[in-house]
Structures are given as structure tokens and as C-alpha cells.
């Protein structure tokens, strides 16, 4: 049973560029949440996708956007990168529909460095 997978593992970008991160949820899960974890901090909620729509959003600017595909996988896009966007980006999956789960399962994360 495959767990949550994320790609790429590491990414280096320069200020002003755009980046796309990818996530495949755990088998049987239909909901994907994205978190930003700055160094030495706990994860901060960015947004959550369910049924291909953004259902909840944390306190992040519109430069952060996402998408969910029919197979439940998801992308996180960040435009106009700032130095402060350097962080570990975590994807978490859960089930919101039938058989909803209260627990989120996390992927290994993508380490984004903005120079």
C-alpha cells in the first residue's frame, strides 16, 4: 500500500521564478492538504483540496495556488518566489468523503530553496 509521495525531493529556484510541487495521496484517500514548514517551526496550513476544489485556505497570499486532479493527486504552485518561501513543503492526505478519516498522513516533503 503506497503512502503519500511527493516530487521533487529538493528544488532550488531564484527570486521571481515560479515553482510547481506534486503530491500523490495515499491509496484510498480523496483529500490533499498542503503545509509549509519553515526551518525550526511547525507546519503551517496552506490549503486543502477535495473533489478538485479548494475547500479551505490558510493565511497565505494568492501567489500560492493549487490544483487537484481526478485521480486525487495535487499540485502546489508558487509564483514570484521570495526568499521567505524557502521551506519544506509537506503534503498530507486524508479521506473527507465516505469513510472520512480524522487523521492526516504526510509525505516526505519537498525542500525548496530560493536564492
Amino acid at each position, binding site marked *: 500500500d503506497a503512502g503519500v509521495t511527493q516530487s521533487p525531493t529538493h528544488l532550488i529556484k531564484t527570486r521571481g521564478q515560479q515553482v510547481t510541487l506534486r503530491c500523490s495521496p495515499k491509496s484510498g484517500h480523496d483529500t490533499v492538504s498542503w503545509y509549509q514548514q519553515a526551518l525550526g517551526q511547525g*507546519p503551517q496550513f496552506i490549503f486543502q483540496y477535495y473533489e478538485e476544489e479548494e475547500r479551505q485556505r490558510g493565511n497565505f497570499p494568492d501567489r500560492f495556488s493549487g490544483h487537484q486532479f481526478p485521480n486525487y493527486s495535487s499540485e502546489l504552485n508558487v509564483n514570484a518566489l521570495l526568499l521567505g518561501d524557502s521551506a519544506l513543503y509537506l503534503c498530507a492526505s486524508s479521506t473527507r468523503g465516505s469513510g472520512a478519516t*480524522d*487523521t492526516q498522513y504526510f509525505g516526505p516533503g519537498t525542500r525548496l530553496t530560493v536564492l
Partner: protein
Amino acid sequence: AQTVTQSQPEMSVQEAETVTLSCTYDTSESDYYLFWYKQPPSRQMILVIRQEAYKQQNATENRFSVNFQKAAKSFSLKISDSQLGDAAMYFCAYRSDSNTGNQFYFGTGTSLTVIP
């Protein structure tokens, strides 16, 4: 918004001994879930234990147990018979039981060192 506080940035424990990590939270809700996650250097967040707020009985998972004090809004994690593999960052997390929101709120973490 709910807040989660972990007041111990670092803790250490001798191998085979017991350690307790503290967590407090602030909420006006009556139904919610609490979690402890472990994040080793590999970065993967691993679920350690979960607790439903409506349950008075403290959750237990092998060597891991919690002390859930709802009135005090406290949720501490006890690790018994500590092992070298327990060394990691530990995060306390809160999740609402609301249908409109199930995002997790995390504390800032406690770094646990296990001394051989």
C-alpha cells in the same frame, strides 16, 4: 484560530528511561482531535498517537501514552522505555471536528535527544 503551544524546545532522556513532552492548546470548541507526530531527520511526519476529545480515556500505543486534561487544555506525551530510534522532533497538533474545517494546527515542536 486555534493555537498549540509546546513550551519545551528541547528535551533529553537516557535510553530506557521515561520522558514526558508537554503541549497546551487554546480552543472554544468542545469536539476536536489531538495528535502527536514524530519527525525524524528523514523529514517524514509519522503519526505517533491520536486522541478524540470526547473520550475521557487516555490513548495508548505501545510505549507511547498521553495525559489528556480537557479542562486544562493540556495534552502531554509520555514515552516509556525510550529507545535511540525515538530521537526526533515531536509535534503536537489540533484538528477541529467541524465539517467545514479539518486543517491541522501544529505547535513549534520539541526536539528529543536519546542518550545511550
